[in-house]
């Protein structure tokens, strides 16, 4: 049985004679498509326990592919932790001064068959032998940018 196809090639490439990787559109292959996307602005402070979560309920019945990027932290001088407003890909950790006297900054994703949860928080773990224990730091104006694809992990 014949199946209609849609091929579109890169400029200066031939859809029939050049390798398939030069097709920008190829209906014989799945192309990853975004179901949900967004930008979130949030703070970490004593009011929220230095923890932020953004939950997107998708109810796909399978675990989707996800990409997320967000701001991290930096030393803004005199040991004060501030926001680094450049975007890094999730998941990641950050320390200021590579020193556990400030709490570990965690950027992470939970993915399930019904929701995706983006998490940014300061880790409250007590550090062995540290005196004093790690201190929290307030951050105002953190951001994260996410894409949740309709396409499954496998």
């Amino acid at each position, binding site marked *: 049985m014949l*199946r209609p196809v*849609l091929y*579109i090639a*890169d*400029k*200066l490439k031939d859809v029939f004679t050049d390798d*398939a*990787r030069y*097709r*920008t*559109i*190829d*209906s014989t*292959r*799945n*192309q*990853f*498509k*975004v*179901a949900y996307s967004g*930008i979130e602005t949030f703070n970490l402070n004593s009011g929220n326990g230095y923890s932020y979560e953004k939950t997107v309920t998708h109810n*796909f019945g399978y*675990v989707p*592919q996800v*990409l997320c*990027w967000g701001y*991290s932290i930096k030393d803004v001088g005199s040991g004060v932790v501030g926001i680094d*407003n*450049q*975007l*890094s*890909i*999730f*998941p*990641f*950790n*950050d*320390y200021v001064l*590579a020193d*556990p006297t400030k709490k*570990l900054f*965690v*950027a*992470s*994703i*939970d*993915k399930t068959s019904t929701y995706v949860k983006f*998490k940014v928080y300061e*880790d409250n*773990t*007590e550090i*062995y*032998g540290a005196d004093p224990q790690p201190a929290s730091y307030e951050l105002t104006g953190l951001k994260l*940018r996410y*894409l949740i694809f*309709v*396409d*499954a*992990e*496998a």
Partner: protein
Amino acid sequence: MSIRAILEIAKSGEDLRTIGAVDKALDSTLFLPKIYAVKKVSPVRTTEYEPTTLTYAHGRGYPPMFITYREQQYLWDNSSMPEFDPVRYTFETGTETVKQKMNSTNFINEDCGWYSRDHYLILFLNPLEDPATAPEPTSHNSPRLKIGEDLRNTPDYEASIDSKYQTLKVHTQDQLVCSLPAWNSTDVDYSRFDWFEVAHGLDYPPVFAPFGVDSSGLDLNLCYQGDLADIPSDFVVNDIVNKMWEGRNWYNEFLNPTEFFETLWLFVDSSKLYLGYRRLNLSFGNQTFPARTVRVNYTIFNLPINEEFNLLS
């Protein structure tokens, strides 16, 4: 009420009248992230034993979405570790303390390791943050399919489909199942690598997922905050990719929490996808590491990691 034209194409064997979005190869009601460039970024090393930097001025005027892969000849770029011939590529996020970062002018990594090789940036036209002034739509001078609203006045990245740009086209998806045998380690035989592989059927190293297992590897002790019996006998890598970053402080919480370490890596080269698994016994005694079944749900895309292009040039 205005009528909106849409383009939907079902995956092979599916009926467009009855399927959901996941079974459509193309669906203009959902946007396709648009890849405008793959760029090789080479590390700059000014003096030995000093941080090696990566910088690329992308020219977009806003921070574009990106993912990165890193070329390695040796595991950890360390010549005492297993060598890869041909070279392999792994997803990259940056180190524990030095991230890869994107701003409105540059992609930056302030310390990618003393012996780091080339990195490859997969750059999307879509912004991480909206620019103060939206760019003009571009011309193409070649047949073009573009679907979206107000196409003459909005940036190309606002279109749901634009055939000028590359997309994440799936070559194959499957699960790699790795049967790790039990291993009796000793004070002499204290480190073991097991490698598992699957041919991807392309003749170039392809962009691949899962995203997030980077060149430092996935530390299973941190993922499960334990060792040996704390790590399941059967687990899926995709389920724990983020757990390592949540468990990072476990090494700091206890004095010497373990002497038995398990780490895995994911790589591609021009013919295969690899999972490497290392078990390490630092107790100076005997220890049996249990058998495990390690599964990874992978996606191979029809896009070379190491073939540069720029569709805006």
